[in-house]
């Protein structure tokens, strides 16, 4: 079985995310890291390999993003991927979900994976939907938010929570599965793996290399167009208490609740 894992570089959660007012796009400068939700997808791939119920030939990390996104690929490789593919091109800048999903699907077609794994959401984009777009372009079945996956030859038995409780769904491969963060506890990379990551094969591809239709990607060609960004309605700030002396903190909470007749 060949597994492709989609990974993304996102601003570090500790850094404030902003909109660049001149372009109306997300300001993606500043500290970057591998999207934490994607580490669960890599771990899921590793557990399939180590589980041994089906032989895994290769785990390939795939990203679309600017030059700096190689760091996310290095991190993915240090966590267990065998090699990585980087789709990068100025023509892709500002792509919406549909355009991103299309470009990623074109990249994946070359790899012909039996299983595509993704994270449940990107920390900055928060669209939850790239998987469904990619699957449609690849003509593969797909599920999102999967928290348990049993792999047998040619099929996956997946569990996930949907609107009415937990569903169990059987999917035949090739398939696109985005995993929920409860599926596993991702491992930490070893120092050796971190050091070795840069030596693993990394392929860099452009829009032209893949025969991606340039009229279907990039901000100008994205069908969902951002007109503007505005501030949300202001809500009165709540009262904050820093817990130093717990007896005093509790007294303040009780007084607050009592004032509102909640006791």
């Amino acid at each position, binding site marked *: 079985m060949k597994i492709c894992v989609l990974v993304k570089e996102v601003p570090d959660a500790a850094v404030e995310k902003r*909109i660049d007012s001149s372009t109306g796009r997300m300001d993606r400068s500043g500290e970057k890291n591998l999207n934490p939700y994607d580490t669960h997808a890599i771990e899921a791939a590793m557990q399939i390999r180590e589980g041994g119920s089906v032989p895994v030939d290769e785990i390939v990390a795939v990203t679309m993003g600017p030059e700096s996104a190689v760091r996310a690929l290095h991190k993915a490789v240090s966590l267990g991927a065998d090699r990585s593919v980087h789709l990068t091109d100025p023509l892709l800048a500002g792509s919406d*979900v*549909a355009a991103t*999903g*299309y470009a990623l699907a074109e990249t994946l077609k070359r790899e012909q994976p039996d299983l595509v794994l993704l994270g449940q959401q990107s920390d*900055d984009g928060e669209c939850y*939907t790239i998987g*469904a*777009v*990619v699957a*449609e*372009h690849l*003509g593969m079945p*797909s*599920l*999102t*938010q999967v*928290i348990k996956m049993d792999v047998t030859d040619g099929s996956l*038995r997946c569990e996930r*929570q*949907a*609107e*009415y*409780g*937990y*569903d*169990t*769904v*059987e*999917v*035949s491969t090739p*398939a696109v599965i985005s995993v*929920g*963060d*409860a599926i596993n506890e991702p491992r930490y990379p070893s120092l050796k793996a971190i050091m070795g990551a840069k030596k693993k094969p990394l392929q860099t591809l452009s829009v032209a290399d893949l025969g991606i239709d340039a009229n279907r990607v990039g901000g100008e060609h994205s*069908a*969902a*167009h*951002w*007109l*503007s*960004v505005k*501030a*949300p309605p202001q*809500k009165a700030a*709540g*009262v*904050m*208490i*820093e817990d130093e002396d*717990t007896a005093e*903190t*509790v*007294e303040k*909470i*009780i007084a607050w*609740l009592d004032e*509102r007749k*909640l*006791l």
Partner: protein
Amino acid sequence: MPDILVYALHYEGAINKNSLGAVSEGARLADQLGGKAHAILVGEGVPDDLAASLGAYGASRVLVAEGPEGLAQPVVDAMAQAIAAGGYSYALFGGGLLGFEIGAGLAARLSAGVAMEVTGVRVEGGKLIAERPILGDSAISEIEFRSEVGIVIGRLNAFETKQTGAGAAPVEHLSFELSEHAKRAKMVSRGEQRGADVDIEGADILVAGGRGLGKAEAFELCENLAKAFGNNAAVAATRAVVDAGWYPYAAQIGQTGKTVAPKLYLAAGISGAIQHKVGMQASENIVAINKDANAPIFEFSDLGIVGDLHKIMPKLIDAVKAKRES
């Protein structure tokens, strides 16, 4: 024809409340656009009267397609077929999980623009503009569609349910072809309720616990605090702890759980992710205990306590008891 096709999710003979909101919203928008709002249901033997009941919410016609339930891709097939035949300008979805998957799949199929987590839609120059909060709700982007069909996926509870329609709507049966990939996913079991059947919807006070509790046993703190508050209090949970098996699904608040609006919602060790917030933000009073001063929950709490819940909760339980006994 600026008509809108609204997806209506149903389960065990009832239409999802968020879908009723989406149908109401679709009717309101179609009216302003000078078009019609139609609804579509996909399922196994959907009763005609269930479908027709959407007329009360403003659907002027309801399409019913026979197909597998609970999976997104068959609905993508059915809606793509309906849109090809009916010439709709927009597809609209209420909040939930399937709506995201269907809307995204449909966007790919139709090369259409899609906006998700939408909290408001307005008509401007004969077109829809969708408002979507971004960056943890710190800003709102406004999105227009440059494709033949625009796809709008609402946030949970974003659209108000309104019975404005004329009563039963005409029902039309739609036949469609399942795509090859849609046939490759099969529902084995649906809607399994994990954990005990607890009732939280009538409670005036909810003490909710999240991953910050550290372990399943620590839910005792939430239970004891609820007990201290008296009969009208119950315990709720986040998806993170329900997925981990620490607490029953029936107590889960949020996008794929329950929506509540108690007098008091006390959140302990909960970060305040959007998917949780959408299920409890209408609570009258929100109190949060979290050791991380930057936790998103403090952005929408009325009282925020930065500290370790394991230190604060035991003392708070005693203090609430003492106060209520005095």
